[in-house]
Every structure is written in structure tokens, then in C-alpha cells.
């Protein structure tokens, strides 16, 4: 009695072309996403704080960068305090104040008086959820 099963010898061929297509698409996706993120964030030496927490709320974040001289940069464009208030009011009108989380990326050597001015503008615009970006260690 022949109990050994009959295996048919078949060569398995992986479709590499499809795999390479997927890999390329992934590369393009990650590069595009990282570029968008870079556009919003300026290269700034952020203040050091040990008790910051991980970024929990990634949606609805409106990023404001502040240089050492107190100038405001939003999405690579320099803005005045008047512009900032207009932009924030538009954001509040379209999304609602409770949906906006304002992330302040401030140069560690910026004057606090400039920060107070921005906080005042945020308050006037109705934005109340504020996060300061910090780093754990000085780079």
C-alpha cells in the first residue's frame, strides 16, 4: 500500500514587481509626509524641560513658530501679530475653538514679553488649548 502522498512539484514564484511597486509607493508616501511636517516646523532650539509629555493629540494642531527676535512664522511665512489674530479667528470660525490646539514652538532665548503678546492674541481669538513644544535634553 502506498501511503505517501503524491506531491506535485511546483515552483513558487513571488511576484517581485508588485512588491517593488509597493516599496516605492511607501518611500514616496513617507518622504511626502515628512516634508509636510518639516514645512510646518522651523528649526529652532526649543526650551528644555524634564516634565513634558508625549504628543497625545495629533489632530487639530495649529503650529506657531517664534524666532529669537519674537517674529512669528506660520507654515514658513513670517506673520505679524495682526495676521496671526486674523488667521486664528478664521480657524475658530471654521473649526470651532474647542477643536484647535495651538502648539507654540518658541526659541528658548526669545523674550517672554513676546510670548505674552502671542498668548494675549490667542486669548483674544478665543483659542484656549495651548501646548509649548519642549525637548528633554539640550542638543
Amino acid at each position, binding site marked *: 500500500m502506498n501511503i505517501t502522498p503524491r506531491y506535485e512539484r511546483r515552483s513558487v514564484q513571488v511576484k517581485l514587481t508588485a512588491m517593488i511597486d509597493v516599496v516605492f509607493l511607501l518611500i514616496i508616501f513617507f518622504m511626502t509626509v515628512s516634508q509636510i511636517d518639516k514645512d510646518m516646523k522651523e528649526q529652532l532650539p526649543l526650551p528644555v524641560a524634564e516634565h513634558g*509629555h508625549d*504628543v*497625545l493629540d495629533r489632530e487639530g494642531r495649529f503650529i506657531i513658530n517664534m524666532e529669537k527676535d519674537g517674529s512669528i512664522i506660520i507654515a514658513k511665512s513670517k506673520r505679524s501679530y495682526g495676521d496671526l489674530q486674523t488667521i486664528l479667528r478664521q480657524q475658530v470660525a471654521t473649526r470651532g475653538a474647542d477643536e484647535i490646539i495651538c502648539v507654540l514652538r518658541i526659541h528658548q532665548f526669545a*523674550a517672554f514679553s513676546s510670548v*505674552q503678546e502671542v498668548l494675549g492674541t490667542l486669548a483674544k481669538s478665543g483659542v*484656549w488649548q495651548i501646548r*509649548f*513644544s*519642549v525637548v528633554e535634553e539640550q542638543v
Partner: protein
Amino acid sequence: MKLLKKRGQRHEDNMLAMIDVVFLLLIYFLCTAQFGILELDFNADLSTGMSQEQADSEQDFETVKIFILADDAGFLCNRMSYSDIHSLRVRLEELRSLYDARIIIDAQEGVIFQSVMAVMDETTALDFSNVSFAGKQ
């Protein structure tokens, strides 16, 4: 000149070379990518979003005013002078052991943001629940 393939002869691309190229590209992009420093969040919600109930409960807090002096000259905490952040921390620890105070941070003209964050970091470490900034006058 022979243009036709022999019957049964399969045309196979050299996939290994292509995969090599793909991986080299992948390594190239990984190496050239600027890996950002991990940024953390520090909550500083403004009190404009408070409900009336929250605003009423705020009045129960003792208020502690911290004033940061320019040129690293130290701090004033309820008008008492502290030369550095460590002595201020000791004072804040004492206060925290008594009650959860409402902290208001203010600074002299010319104080940099890092100094303010250092004070805020200490108040967060001591778990003060109500920390705010003085408005600009």
C-alpha cells in the same frame, strides 16, 4: 540573425539587481533623512476655556505669584527673594505640602522663555494643578 526565441525559452528579468537598487535607494533615503529630535508637549491651557463652575472653584485656591528677575538675578515668590531655581523649588515644595496653590508666573522685561519654562517645569514636577501666566501690561 536570429530574432525569434526558441520555443519554450522563458524571458526572465534579473530581479536580484532590481531589488539591490531598491534597497540601495531605501538606505540612501534613510541616511539622508534628517531625523528630528523628539519634541514633547507642555500643557499651558488658557483659563478662557473654563466653565463657570471651574472659575468658581479657582477662587478657593491660595495664590502664589512667582516673578522672574532678568539677568539671572533670581526669583520673587510672594515678594520673598530666591537666588536660584533650587531655592525656589524648596519653597514651592513647602507650599505644595500645605496646599495646591494657584501659581501665577510673571517676568521682568528681558527675561528669556527658557527661564519661564524652568519655573513651569518645577511647578509641574510638584503637581500644582493651576499654573497660569500674568498678562502683558
